[in-house]
C-alpha cells in the first residue's frame, strides 16, 4: 500500500469573489513506512496539502488514495472517522487545541473518540505522555498551568495516543529550544522506524537532512520536485534558484570547497561532515 495523489486540485471559497487555488494539479506516490518532508515557502500550499491527508479538506478535483480509502470531491463525511483514526495530524502550534480539565483527559480525547475502551485509552495516553517527558505527577493537573513547550508535548502525546498509521506534522518543533527540538524529532523518527509513515512540514533543512527519506517541494500551489534527500541537496544552484537553503553541514562543505578543501561527497549532517573531514585529513597525513 502507498499514499497516492492523482491530479489533485483544491480551490478555496469556490464560487465567491474570494476564490483562490490552494493546490494545482498535485500528483505523487509515497511509499508507506517512509519519512517524508514537505518543504516550500509560506503560502506555497503545504498546510493545505496536509489537510487533504485527513480529508479535512477534500480535493475540488482529482483523487487521493491512502490507508485503504479513496478521497474525492464526492467523499461524504460519514466514514471519515475510521480514516482519521489511521491518519493523525499535529497542527502548527498544537498547544492551542488543549481543552480538557486534566492533562491525562486531554491526551485520552482522541483514543476515546476513536472507540478505544477507557482502560486502553488511559494506558496509551500515559505511555505517550511519558515518552514525551511529561512527569506522572502532572497527569491530574490542568494543561493550562504548563509552560508552552510542555503544552506542545501534551498535544503531541494526544495525537500519538491513538497510534495512527500515518503521522502528519506541521512544523511540530517551531519555537522549541534546541534540546527540546532534537528530543521530539527523534521521537518522530523512532515512531517511523517502528513501522509508521511520517510526513513532516518544516523550514529546517537540517531536520530534512537528518530525518527524512524523501522530499516534496511545493511552490505557489504546485509540486515542483519529488526526490530523495541526498538528491535534493546535491544541487545547490537549483536550491538557490528556488530560495531554499542547504543544511548547515553542506553549506560548511561548500565554503571549504571555495577555500580549496574539497570533500568527495556533500555531507548532509554534522556527523557526516565530521567523518569526511577527518577521513580527508588522514589521507593528507599519509
Amino acid at each position: 500500500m502507498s499514499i497516492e495523489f492523482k491530479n489533485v486540485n483544491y480551490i478555496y471559497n469556490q464560487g465567491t469573489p474570494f476564490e483562490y487555488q490552494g493546490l494545482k494539479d498535485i500528483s505523487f506516490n509515497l511509499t508507506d513506512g517512509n519519512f517524508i518532508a514537505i518543504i516550500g515557502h509560506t503560502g506555497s500550499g503545504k498546510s493545505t496539502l496536509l489537510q487533504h491527508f485527513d480529508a479535512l479538506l477534500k480535493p475540488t478535483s482529482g483523487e487521493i488514495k491512502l490507508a485503504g480509502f479513496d478521497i474525492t470531491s464526492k467523499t461524504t463525511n460519514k466514514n471519515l472517522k475510521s480514516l482519521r483514526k489511521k491518519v493523525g495530524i499535529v497542527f502548527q502550534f498544537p498547544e492551542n487545541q488543549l481543552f480538557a480539565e486534566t492533562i491525562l483527559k486531554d491526551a485520552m480525547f482522541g483514543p476515546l473518540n476513536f472507540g478505544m475502551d477507557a482502560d486502553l485509552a488511559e494506558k496509551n495516553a500515559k505511555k505517550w505522555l511519558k515518552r514525551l517527558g511529561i512527569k506522572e505527577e502532572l497527569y491530574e493537573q490542568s494543561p493550562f498551568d504548563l509552560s508552552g513547550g510542555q503544552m506542545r508535548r501534551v498535544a503531541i502525546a494526544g495525537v500519538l495516543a491513538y497510534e495512527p498509521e500515518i503521522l502528519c506534522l506541521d512544523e511540530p518543533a517551531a519555537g522549541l529550544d534546541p534540546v527540546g527540538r532534537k528530543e521530539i524529532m527523534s521521537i518522530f523518527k523512532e515512531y517511523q522506524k517502528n513501522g509508521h509513515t511520517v510526513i513532516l512540514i518544516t523550514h529546517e533543512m537540517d531536520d530534512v537532512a537528518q530525518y527524512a527519506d524523501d522530499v516534496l517541494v511545493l511552490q505557489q500551489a504546485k509540486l515542483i520536485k519529488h526526490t530523495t534527500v541526498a538528491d535534493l541537496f546535491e544541487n545547490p544552484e537549483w536550491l538557490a534558484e528556488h530560495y531554499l537553503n542547504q543544511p548547515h553541514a553542506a553549506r560548511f562543505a561548500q565554503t571549504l570547497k571555495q577555500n580549496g578543501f574539497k570533500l568527495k561527497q556533500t555531507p548532509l549532517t554534522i556527523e557526516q561532515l565530521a567523518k569526511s573531514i577527518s577521513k580527508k585529513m588522514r589521507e593528507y597525513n599519509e
Partner: protein
Amino acid sequence: MSKIIIGRYIPGNSIIYKMDPRGKIIAAFFFIALIFLANNWITYSLITLFTFAAVFATKLKIKTFWQGVRPLIWLILFTSVLQLFFTTGGKVYWHWGILNISHYGIENSIYIFIRFVMIILMSTVLTLTTTPLEISEGMEWILTPLKYLKVPIGQIALVMSIALRFVPTLMDETVKIMNAQRARGADFNDGGLVKRAKAIIPILVPLFINSLTIAIDLAVAMESRGYREGEKRSRYRVLKWSQYDWINFAFFALLTVLLLIFRNH
C-alpha cells in the same frame, strides 16, 4: 460560512469605493427614510431604478448582491404574503374568514416587497464597498456630537474597530481548532442535542483561551506604543470629503425632488 455576504467587504475600484464612508453611511440612512416617501407605482419605480443604478455603479457581480438578498428572501416573502391576506380596501377579489385578497392588499404586498429588497440592496452596496474599519470611523464622526454629553465616542469607536478587526482572526482560529479536534476524532454533526452541545466544549475552551491571549497581547502592544485611555490621538487614515460625495448627494437630492413631485400624482 464563507458564503454569507451581508456585512462583507469586497475589494473593488469603482466610483462608490472612492466615496467617503461618512457620506455613504449618511446616504444609506437617508435612503431608508426616502423609501417611505414612495406611495405609488411611479415613485416605487423611481426608487427601484435608483437602487439598481447604485448596484451597477459598484461594478461588482450581480450574483454577489443576489447572495446578499437570498438568506432573507423567505422572511420578505412571508411579510408580503401577510400583507396580501390581511390588508383590506379597494376591490375584493377573494375572501375566506378573516383572510381576503383585495386590490390594496396586492398593491401593498408588492410595495413592501420592493421596500425590503431595495433597503437590503442599498445597505449591501454600502457594506460591500466600505471596509468595516471605514464604517466604524465614519460612525465615529457621525456620533461626535455625543461627546458633549460625555459619551466616550473615541473609546467606543476603538472597541468597535478592534472587534471588527478580529472577526476574521477569530473565524480562522475557530476553523483551526475545529480541524484539530476533528482530526482527533471529534464529531460535531452527530448524535442528539446533548451530545452535540457537549461536542462544542473542545472548541469553546481553546477559543476562549486563545482570544484572551490575543487580547492581552494586543493590550500590551498598544500600551507599549503609547496608547493611553482618553488621550488625544491623531489619525493614520484621514477621512476626506471628495467631489464624488457631492455627486452622490446631488443624486440623492434629485431623487428626493422627483419623489416629492410624483408622490401626489
